[in-house]
């Protein structure tokens, strides 16, 4: 177990900077997920912690020791790679035991520890096989075993589930979670899959364009996204965004076509903002209901337990998730209603969250 402290870390490749100064603190035993779209620098950051990439600027410390100049083997980290990176010419047992062999652990003890790890991962019957003869899920488990056997201070996962099929992915997800509870080693898990991120993380780090956008528990990130990017990246379907201008009594939306009454925005009149509302927070009502926004139904996606209704709000796309068994006809008009407190405001210019309801009591529905 170890804490990780990242201070002002930057990464340059030749002239391009891909990580622009990251500051993070991971507590001992914490399961941290770094979430972001591809190319956001999340894997690079992980590889800098591992020691596979040089740190261009700033420091990374594990348990208070700055590791910038240490070789990967001196950092006490173990890593699970996206393509598993199993040694093709070694059996499962040799793959798992390789780090012990390098460390000079005697064969008898090595075999015993390999057995112990194999038992936890249910690989005992596969120890003599070569990686070629294993299924994707089994290879994944061998890769985990190879990381586990070293009893590392820090576990690093580089999108380890993205090569698995959907069902196996869900299964491995819960196995990783259980394993973490059992080993309680500090874990850093990189992914672009928000469901993986939400379900695994004690704490979530959302990255975009080489910067950290938000750090928080999955619930915090979902309910109070720190930026417009986080708001639209976390949650499926994505949060609806309506561009508007602050007026005396609320917001003028979509180039002045629609008005939204919002009390006490606390924002200067004339400010350009984006108002966000989660599809799950929108209710469908009769088109003429007071305070409702009228919209035209485009498409309905049936999910079994609920449905996603895509509507058109004067040319702006908008979606609603509902569990009611209603099936409005495509092309028909429906009304949309939501609570003022469910609105998130973001600056149109910077994308930063604007906290406007801080002092206000939750308002009844409009």
């Amino acid at each position, binding site marked *: 177990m170890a804490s990780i402290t990242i201070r002002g870390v930057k990464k340059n490749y030749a002239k391009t900077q891909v990580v622009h100064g990251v500051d993070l603190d991971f507590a001992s035993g914490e399961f941290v997920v770094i979430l972001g779209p591809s190319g956001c620098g999340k894997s690079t950051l992980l590889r800098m912690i*591992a*020691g*596979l990439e040089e740190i261009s600027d700033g420091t990374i410390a594990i348990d208070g020791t700055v590791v910038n100049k240490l*070789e*990967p*083997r001196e950092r006490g*980290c*173990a*890593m699970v*790679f*996206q*393509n598993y*990176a*199993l*040694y*093709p*010419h070694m059996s499962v047992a040799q793959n798992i035991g*390789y*780090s012990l062999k*390098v*460390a000079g652990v005697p064969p008898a003890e090595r075999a015993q520890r390999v057995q112990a790890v194999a038992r936890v991962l249910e690989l005992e019957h596969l120890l003599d096989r070569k990686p*070629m003869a294993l299924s994707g899920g089994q290879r994944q488990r061998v890769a985990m075993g*190879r990381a586990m056997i*070293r009893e590392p201070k820090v576990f690093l996962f580089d999108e380890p589930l993205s090569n698995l099929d959907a069902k196996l992915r869900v299964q491995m997800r819960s196995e990783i979670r259980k394993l973490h509870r059992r080993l309680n080693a500090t874990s850093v898990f990189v992914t672009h899959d928000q469901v993986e991120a939400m379900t695994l993380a004690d704490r979530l780090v959302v990255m975009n364009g080489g910067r950290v956008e938000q750090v928080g528990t999955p619930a915090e990130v979902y309910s109070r996204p720190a930026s417009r990017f986080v708001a639209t990246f976390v949650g499926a379907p994505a949060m609806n965004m309506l561009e508007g201008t602050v007026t005396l009594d609320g917001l003028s939306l979509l180039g002045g076509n629609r008005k939204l009454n919002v009390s006490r925005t606390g924002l200067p009149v004339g400010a350009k903002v984006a108002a966000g509302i989660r599809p799950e927070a929108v209710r469908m009502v009769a088109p003429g209901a007071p305070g409702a926004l009228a919209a035209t139904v485009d498409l309905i996606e049936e999910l079994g337990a609920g449905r996603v209704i895509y509507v058109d709000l004067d040319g702006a796309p908008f979606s609603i998730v509902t569990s009611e068994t209603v099936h409005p006809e495509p092309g028909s008009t429906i009304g949309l209603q939501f609570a003022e407190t469910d609105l998130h405001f973001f600056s149109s210019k910077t994308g930063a969250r604007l906290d406007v309801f801080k002092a206000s009591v939750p308002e009844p529905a409009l």
Partner: protein
Amino acid sequence: MEKRVTFGRWTIGILFAVPQLLLIFTFFYWPAGQAVYWSLTLQQPWGGGNIWVGLDNFRSILANADYWNSITASMIFAGISTGLAMVIALVLAALTDRQLAGSWLYRVVLIWPYGIAAPALALAFRFILAPEAGFMAVVNRVWPGFWDPGLDGADAMASIIIAFSWKYVGYNFIFFLAAFQAIPRSLIEAAAMDGSGVLRRFWDIQFPLITPTIFFLLVINITESFQDSFGIVDIMTAGGPANATNLMVYKIYSDGFKGLDYSGAAAQSIILMLLIVALTIVQFRFIERRVHYR
């Protein structure tokens, strides 16, 4: 399911195979058959018929000390030059694969020697290794008589080994580099995470994974060192001094076309062919077992 093209009638299949069969027959089986026939007869040097002598040609060659000397020289040449060419190429390719400074330079430069014809490079090495001028002259000045390939058989052997290895280092390098680059980067990184240092990773991960390439190059290098050495020997030493570099392939030429002993040369070429076949079989039987194919 494997997709297979099938022909309605077997005659069409045969027709497609005919051009290739003709080439193989004309340029391999026919000359090889002729050589076998000549080796069993006594050809007259000025033409005009021959006499069937059975295995007499083989008996007389194998009873000749000069011939055994030639086999020994060929074996020494093959062993040392293959070893040198492969080890040097392996080290250079491993360094280039690590992207050390200047690696782009070798990548380009090391490919060239293989493109040079054997006689041309032999001529160059004849000047480079000349005892009376250039670098070796300086060495000879410090240690008089240290280097004289014209008189000392070991020096002459060393010269042709250097020239041949120099050519095949480039060839081997290309294959080794391709093999190293085919190893996924993440395997090396995984080994680094497992605590393995640069040399350990080379022996535990990279070396086993390039064994198919090592095996392939071993077969090719040994075969070529028996055959492709002709031009180098002819220009640099002409088999001398005192037959020290009279390799099997050169002896076939000098006995056949200079000594006009066609039948003896034919028998020698059959022995050389059988030797190469035998060596290749041995390599497949005993070395291939240690190769890890992925």
